[in-house]
């Protein structure tokens, strides 16, 4: 038996984990399950595609792929702009919708608003770009054998490395910086944090910026290794929630580990059960966690 499915699982898992960091951060700091996060992923991927196209047009150049990869430097430049754009999109949505509802203080109304906003944003993407899949590159990648019968494309390796860098960066941000400390304080107790001199509104704004940018990165990774579709974020939503809850709400390493577990479980299911029930795996994991350890692997019991 080939061990290919483990490599595939780790790839899917790192993508889910990257997305789940944003979910777990907004969940613990803003206090609600944000269904729009899936849409940040899809909007981020499309934003990168459009910006890369504009750069290509603006300079009138045909960009050659970099080395063994299917993508050129334009995508990498566009990725930076797209992450900024998605962060600002998250911020704009907070300004228009969530900040106003937050004043009423009912978290479940925010969940509902996020559910409605996600439907609207996804449908808007479908209107703008149709439901036909889009690709960053038409280059065909040759998978390289890396031993034990496992083959990985150069793109996949690049994405794994980039994901690892982002995850490590996030972990350091949360544990080592003043902003990270402020974020943890707000997630523990917003009123107390405010009394302690923390600008809660600023922390919330930065959380949205970071969450949006990470969602965009996850979208670009998914877009490069798979494809870009309006429903790409929606399909990742349940795995991301499962990963965030599995890892324990508020824990960045937990979200990543949860993502890897979800990814591995999915690829095991594809290998041993069949691809058609893949989407049910995240749900079964979610139910198992809620039954056995609702606080997740790294979570603490509430209150």
């Amino acid at each position, binding site marked *: 038996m080939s061990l290919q499915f483990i490599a595939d699982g780790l790839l899917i898992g790192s993508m889910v984990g990257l997305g789940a960091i944003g979910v777990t951060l907004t969940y613990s700091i803003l206090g609600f399950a944000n269904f729009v996060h899936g849409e940040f992923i899809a909007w981020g991927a499309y934003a990168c595609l459009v910006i890369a196209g504009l750069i290509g047009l603006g300079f009138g150049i045909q960009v050659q792929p970099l080395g063994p990869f299917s993508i050129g430097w334009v995508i990498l430049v566009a990725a930076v702009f797209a992450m900024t754009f998605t962060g600002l999109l998250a911020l704009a949505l907070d300004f228009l919708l969530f900040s106003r509802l937050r004043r*009423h203080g009912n*978290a479940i109304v925010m969940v509902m608003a996020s559910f*409605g906003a996600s439907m609207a944003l996804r449908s808007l993407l479908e209107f703008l770009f149709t439901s036909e899949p889009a690709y960053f590159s038409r280059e065909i990648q040759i998978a390289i054998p890396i031993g034990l019968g496992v083959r990985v494309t150069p793109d996949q390796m690049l994405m794994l490395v980039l994901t690892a860098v982002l995850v490590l960066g996030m972990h350091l941000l949360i544990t080592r910086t003043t902003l990270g400390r402020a974020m943890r304080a707000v997630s523990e107790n917003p009123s107390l944090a405010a009394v302690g001199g923390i600008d809660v509104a600023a922390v919330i704004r930065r959380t949205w910026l970071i969450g949006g940018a990470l969602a965009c990165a996850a979208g670009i990774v998914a877009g490069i290794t798979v494809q870009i579709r309006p429903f790409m974020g929606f399909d990742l939503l349940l795995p991301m929630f499962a990963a965030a809850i599995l890892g324990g709400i508020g824990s960045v390493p937990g979200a990543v580990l949860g993502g890897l577990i979800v990814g591995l479980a999915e690829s095991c299911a594809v290998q041993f059960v069949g691809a058609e029930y893949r989407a049910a795996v995240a749900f079964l994991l*979610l139910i198992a966690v809620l039954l056995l350890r609702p606080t997740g692997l790294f979570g603490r019991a509430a209150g």
Partner: protein
Amino acid sequence: MLDVLGYLAFFLTTALSYALMCLGLNLQWGQTGLFNVGIAGFAAIGAYASAMLTTPPGGNHFGGFDLPILIGWIGAMLASGLAAAIIGAITLRLRADYLAITTFGIAIVIQLFALNAQSFTGGAFGIGFIPRPFANLAEHALAFELANLALVGGVTLLVFLALERLVRSPWGRVLRAIREDETAALSLGKNAKRFRLQAFVLGSAIMGLAGAIQGHFIGFIAPENYLSAITFQVWAMLIIGGSGNNRGALVGAILVWGLWSLSGAAMTTIFPPEQQVRAAALQIVAIGVLMATILLLRPRGILGEQMTVSRHLEGGTGDG
């Protein structure tokens, strides 16, 4: 003229089937504060259960017991209620938004199962030959539409009256007490978990019934009828009509379904045929924006919650 009347009857029948789902959601969200995003899933369970019980034998799916429609509808309520009991038992003891995530998940899994468990559900082709009520009137289109409207209207009225009575009963008061202040309700010796589970199961059973009614009205069901768009529409109906108010659920359902049908007709005239699938996405955007606007500007919806205490105190109640 008769065509218009027939269309109106068809429109109202569909709207009322959504109104039923909306009533179920109002019991869960409006009265008890339970956030269910799996409406499509519970409607699908009901529709499939009833279809399997009532279709003639020989279909490419499980069932085909050729039972009367009424048995199918009862089976639909039982099946959806049972699914809700299992989900509720696992999630209702946890924080409120875990219910949202699990119901979101169950709707996806049910859709997946309907699509892939070919020998059980008929797969992507769905289930056809579902007996339609008053099929013997099918030759007279208008009479058929009106008879169906009367039937669905009757069921909706029955559920509406039953829920109105429940809301004013001691049971309904406990639900609202739990929603408003769980600690206080607990200290009065009310078992919050059990009441929540009861409301969740009953609401989902009503959604299952509504799904079954839709299936029998059309005569055909398929997995793509149960995408998250239905859930979204029913939520929009309740928010716009006014959550916590059964009349609001009815008004919202008819209004939103009316807007949906009108905007659908408008899209057909504005956009060329090859663009229409694309344009249909704009309808959802519009409903989403409308729902967000209502949440921001008029969170009570059109009618708002009715202050209800007890049916013995009707004189002293007013809008709250």
